[in-house]
């Protein structure tokens, strides 16, 4: 039976699970971990995908089951939740600091959904992405996508370092 303090401990174990593609941050830092609760004495963990095709989601589910079972909380149920859709705004300030320390620029606030057609970005101005290495705002996007679905590629024109930006969605 998992209740009270047990559930708090289970939550701590789940929150510490690293993201497989961004191992410097945890699933809690990224806002992928939505809930840890108890149903009929069993631990139920709810996670949400960052992108529809994110291949890391099932690795995360596997790792959650593995660690919670190893910590004595098994058997564990892992559920997916699609709504509300993940937004990069759910990345915690601690998560943003860890990303920056690892050379990945954390996301700007996401474009708030507005009623009506989604505007074309090329007709609006994008805010500058500060370089995570030297802090300069003189940076250029070199590619809108990167090695994972959640990132874009940039280059700093001041220190000349290439870096990744976690896309705001």
């Amino acid at each position: 039976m998992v209740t009270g303090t047990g559930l708090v401990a289970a939550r701590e174990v789940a929150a510490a699970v690293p993201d497989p593609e961004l191992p410097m941050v945890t699933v809690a830092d990224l806002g992928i971990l939505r809930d840890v609760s108890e149903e009929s004495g069993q631990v139920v963990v709810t996670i949400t995908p960052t992108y529809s095709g994110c291949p890391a989601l099932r690795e995360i589910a596997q790792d959650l089951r593995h660690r919670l079972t190893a910590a004595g909380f098994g058997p564990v149920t892992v559920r997916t939740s699609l709504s509300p859709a993940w937004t990069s705004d759910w990345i915690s300030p601690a998560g943003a600091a860890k990303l920056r320390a690892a050379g990945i620029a954390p996301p700007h606030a996401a474009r708030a959904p507005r009623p009506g057609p989604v505007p074309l970005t090329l007709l609006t101005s994008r805010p500058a992405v500060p370089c995570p290495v030297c802090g300069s705002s003189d940076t250029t996007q070199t590619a809108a996508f990167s090695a994972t679905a959640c990132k874009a590629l940039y280059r700093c024109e001041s220190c000349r370092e290439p870096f990744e930006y976690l896309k705001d969605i």
Partner: protein
Amino acid sequence: MSEDEFAAYQSLAQESEDHRWAFGTGFTDPLEGIDTSVPAGADPAALAAYCLMLGDDALIYSHRLQQWMTRMPELEEETALANIALDLLGQARMLLARAGRAEAAAGPGPGRDEDRLAFFRDEHEFRNVRLAERADADFAELVGRLLIFSAWRLALLSRLAGSADPVLAAIAAKGVKELTYHRDYAAQWVIRLGDGTALSRGKMQAALEIIWPLAGDLFRTDPVTAALPGIAVDPAELRGEVDEVLHAVLAEATLERPRSAPMAPVSGRTGRDGVHTEAFGYLLAELQSLPRAHPDATW
């Protein structure tokens, strides 16, 4: 490497029964733990057919993009296309899974899973629009087709996010964020080529003329959509928004609106009715040959 990082890599490399990465490899249900009951008053067979339409668009378009892998002029563009294809594949998985659940609700059978639907249906059972199956002859056709497809799908999914089916609404709301990036990517390339050299402009304009006939299908009202008021989105509603987006991009690209006539339906039928272009059979053969030759294979 810290202990946490090591555990993450170990979990990626681990071999176990339910821990593999391709066809027939124990993928978990993408809708695991999600309430997929059919909304009251909705026809489950029509809902299944609608999810197949939107799922097939994403699956088939994703496959066409995957065919560009190793053939792109630059690594950055290849990465972009791989990511776009992956997003669409993710949408396809959820939509096909949703179709299978609705099929089960319609009865009498248990409903097919995403792999049965993707790999074991024949050509005439696919419901994707004919635009999705077209093979791009060159980079101009690739970005032109991607602009039209993603502008249309974004307009569709942003309306579907308000669907009375909460599962479709949730899948659509996620897709909107992804398609916003896809459309911007395609638009930026169309502008760069159109407003580029005389050669690139000529090729971009020619590509649009070639693709344009297939755009007519995108706005055709169909009986499945009409049978799902409040749940499905009438394609005819999308024309205004898509036109406006194309107009803005073409103006910036100094291109002219293509004038080629829409491709006619075959005996009144198009991709939505299971009638496809010749290219589709070859695409499907490539997509399905491995799982059909080894139906229970795992690796």
